[in-house]
């Protein structure tokens, strides 16, 4: 890669994209380091694909700049940029064989026939399709087609790999298998990669960093662990995994009372006055459950419904005290056995401060 000053490989600055009156991207700024695997994650219509297409130059942004490897590419057409792309539909050329598809970008670069063949063979090997070189795309399975598309995008050794929902057209099993494969491949080549997905599990499993987007703005950027454990907003908490939103009230002495439970969380309360209404978020698996009688911070809850989800059980619980709203608790299969969980049983629930996040109720959201 080009020897640029310490900075990021890809720099997106204040990007704004309008479609007529509709603003699809509001003031997006983002850095991607060289060799990094970044996922744009969000619900449909959040602007993640728009941002990817702006970076590719396929739908150039209305305002703001994009810099790649120190070069300002903001206004350049796609063929003057340096990237490979895989679309959800793969867009494989149906009348060309696998080999010809992969060689498509190479044949235009005045490479010797032998050099092209070597490169194509290398790529076929890389994606494990050596035996299918002379087949047409329609003769391949969805997963195989996806790998051909990937090989074609990598053939010209671009500096940046863009993946637009590359796995969403595939069966669940194939998807899980391929996401490992893509991640391994990416690490092996070390290519800077941006993937768009609406599947949070996919993003958590593959990305070095996740960019969570909603309504054309970035909600949070962070590693999968950060995004999961410390969601920056109720939206992120809700979108990634499952979260309980419990209404609470700030009390004197750095505590919050929610559903009858008292949480010590002084650090999370900076600037909040006693009496202020807040939203308390906690993952279902982080709620602490003990058998029997009331502790100091806990509250008695009745299990009203149990969903069996394989390796764990999701319990719908309702606090015994009046007015407490129902919430969810996840228990591993073994823990559920140990506690002899079944519907109608009452247990003790508590919110461990280290897992609780406090948000001001979002105004108008």
């Amino acid at each position: 890669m080009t020897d640029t000053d310490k900075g990021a490989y890809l720099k997106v600055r204040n990007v704004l994209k309008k479609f007529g009156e509709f603003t699809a991207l509001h003031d997006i700024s983002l850095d991607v380091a060289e060799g990094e695997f970044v996922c744009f994650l969000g619900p449909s219509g959040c602007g993640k694909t728009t941002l990817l297409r702006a970076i590719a130059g396929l739908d150039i942004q209305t305002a703001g700049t994009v810099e790649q490897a120190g070069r300002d590419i903001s206004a350049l057409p796609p063929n003057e940029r340096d990237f490979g792309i895989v679309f959800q539909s793969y867009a494989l050329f149906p009348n060309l064989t696998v080999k010809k598809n992969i060689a498509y970008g190479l044949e235009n670069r005045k490479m010797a026939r032998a050099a092209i063949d070597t490169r194509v063979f290398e790529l076929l090997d890389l994606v494990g399709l050596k035996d299918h070189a002379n087949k047409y795309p329609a003769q391949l399975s969805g997963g195989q087609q996806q790998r051909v598309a990937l090989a074609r995008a990598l053939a010209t050794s671009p500096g940046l790999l863009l993946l637009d929902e590359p796995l969403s057209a595939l069966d669940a099993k194939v998807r899980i298998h391929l996401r490992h494969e893509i991640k391994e491949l990416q690490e092996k080549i070390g290519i800077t990669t941006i993937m768009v997905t609406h599947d949070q599990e996919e993003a958590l499993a593959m990305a070095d960093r996740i960019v969570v987007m909603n309504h054309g703005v970035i909600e949070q950027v962070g590693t999968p662990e950060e995004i999961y454990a410390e969601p920056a907003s109720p939206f992120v908490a809700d979108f990634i995994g499952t979260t309980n939103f419990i209404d609470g009230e700030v009390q004197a002495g750095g505590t919050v009372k929610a559903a009858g439970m008292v949480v010590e969380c002084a650090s999370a309360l900076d600037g909040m006055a006693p009496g202020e209404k807040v939203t308390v978020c906690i993952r279902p698996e982080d709620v602490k459950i003990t058998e029997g009688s009331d502790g100091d911070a806990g509250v008695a809850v009745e299990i009203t419904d149990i969903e069996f989800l394989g390796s764990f059980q999701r319990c719908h619980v309702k606090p015994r005290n009046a007015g407490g709203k129902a919430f969810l608790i996840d228990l591993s299969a073994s823990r559920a056995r140990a506690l002899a969980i079944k519907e109608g049983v009452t247990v003790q629930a508590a919110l461990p401060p280290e897992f609780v996040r406090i948000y001001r109720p979002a105004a108008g959201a």
Partner: protein
Amino acid sequence: MANGTATTANAAPLIKPKVSGEDWIMRAVLMGIALYLLISIVLPLYAILSKSFKNADGVFVGLANYVNFFSTPALFWSIQNSLTVTLICCVIVVTLAFIYAYALTRTCMPLKGLFKGVALLPILMPSLLPAISLVYLFGNQGIIKEWLFGYEIYGPIGIVMGECFYVFPHVLTIMLIAMANSDARLYEASDALGASKIKTFFTVTLPSVRYGVVSAFFVCFTLVITDFGVPKVVGGKYNVLATDIYKQVVGRQDFEMGAVVSMVLLLPALFAFAADRLVQRKQVALLSARAVPYQPKKNAGVDYGMLAFCGVIGFILVSILAMAAYASFATFWPYNLSLSLKHYAFEMMDGGGWDAYYNSIEMAAWTAVIGTAMVFTGAYLVEKSKGFHTGRAAMQLLCMVPMAVPGLVLGLAYVFFFNAPDNPLGFLYHTMPILVICTVTHFYTVSHLTAVTALKQLDAEFESVSQSLKVPFYKTFFRITVPVCMPAILDISMYLFVNAMTTVSAVVFLYSPDTALASVAILNMDDAGDVAPAAAMGMMIVGTAAAVRLVHAGLTRGILGRTQAWRKR
């Protein structure tokens, strides 16, 4: 947050996307084709419009010509005549084609393939030919003229019969498409809810095809009211707008009145065109991707009833063609019915002789080659180029104009435009190229829509992928787009070829002694009383068109088998 966004967004520099060299090439080619359409349709239309406001000396006279038209009963009665026969034809053909299409798609009638083929026969011939055939059947020496109970074939009866024959395949095609859009799930639901067959027909079948019926009605209306061949041969003294234009121009040399009648004919054609576009737009969303195609079940009563119905229609269609064929071989109708090739000795007649036939082949071939290349390239650029929204929208609009313009109006417009003394393109007048230009333009819209449909089925990201691979768009066009769309490209070229062979209306004003065409020769020989040779020339066109269709079918199959091996799993 909204405020914050606004301020920072204002601070960021606006980006003006760089237009690449490739984009410029695409725009230039697109503009070239748009310029072609401008010259070949918009400017001629302007020429004919302005002509209708001028007198013979070219002086502007306002509405004087129109006043003249509407104060001459012999002229404006043609409006009523045209509308009368057209509406009668519409009712008859739409009804018959509806039942025929129903039989082909929704019953288990035997011999469906045969009936589908028979119904498409009229496409192969110029509309003059069925009219000539009617003369042999019902004319003064017709073999079954008693069937008309003393009425004359020359007049509204003959026009209606001839037009019904001529437009049947066009209307049927639309009906078949509409009927194919059926969702078996609706029928199952109707069945499960206990609805009777009749009730199902009115609550499920009819609503699902209503747009198709309306569209068929408008297409039928346009085809009949603008057709010139049938009323020319069997119209007799019953004047309609289409024959009036011809009479004013060729008979009376009154070009201004020809222009006025053209404008009058253009109005209903424009109206029908606009209404049809509106309806077509609604048709699109009717069928969801999850629809399950309807599978008809056996029902002996319905199936054999339909077989009888289609048998009668098919027999009539074949009879009319067979009559023309027989007439062309009969030595001297009706006295000497021994077969001979005497009437195929075209050198003996006026009308251009065998040269006219070869000219037609040459013209059709050029039309097919140039037309297909231009139409497909134009459709590709409209569909796949980026940015340049105004130019693409304008092109899209231009592509639709030819459909709304009747052939006679187009042909006469060419006379005014290309024959104007100050037109630098005047050298084209009376040449082969002007016939090709006129025919390509005349049939541009349907070809364009065929190409657009095929292009829309391609993955929208082929172009994005090739850009990311830095492959120029024209390489992808020739290596991917053209091969993948080859079936549609062949369809377009066959459509253009067959129509170029059979068309009369536009070229009748444009041929010269050196460029006489087969279809025009039919007209002129029929005019001169050489009816049998006219039928013979008609059979030459039918034979050629049929042969081309066969070659097309063979080519399509061959290409699908060879270059499109990828279609097979």
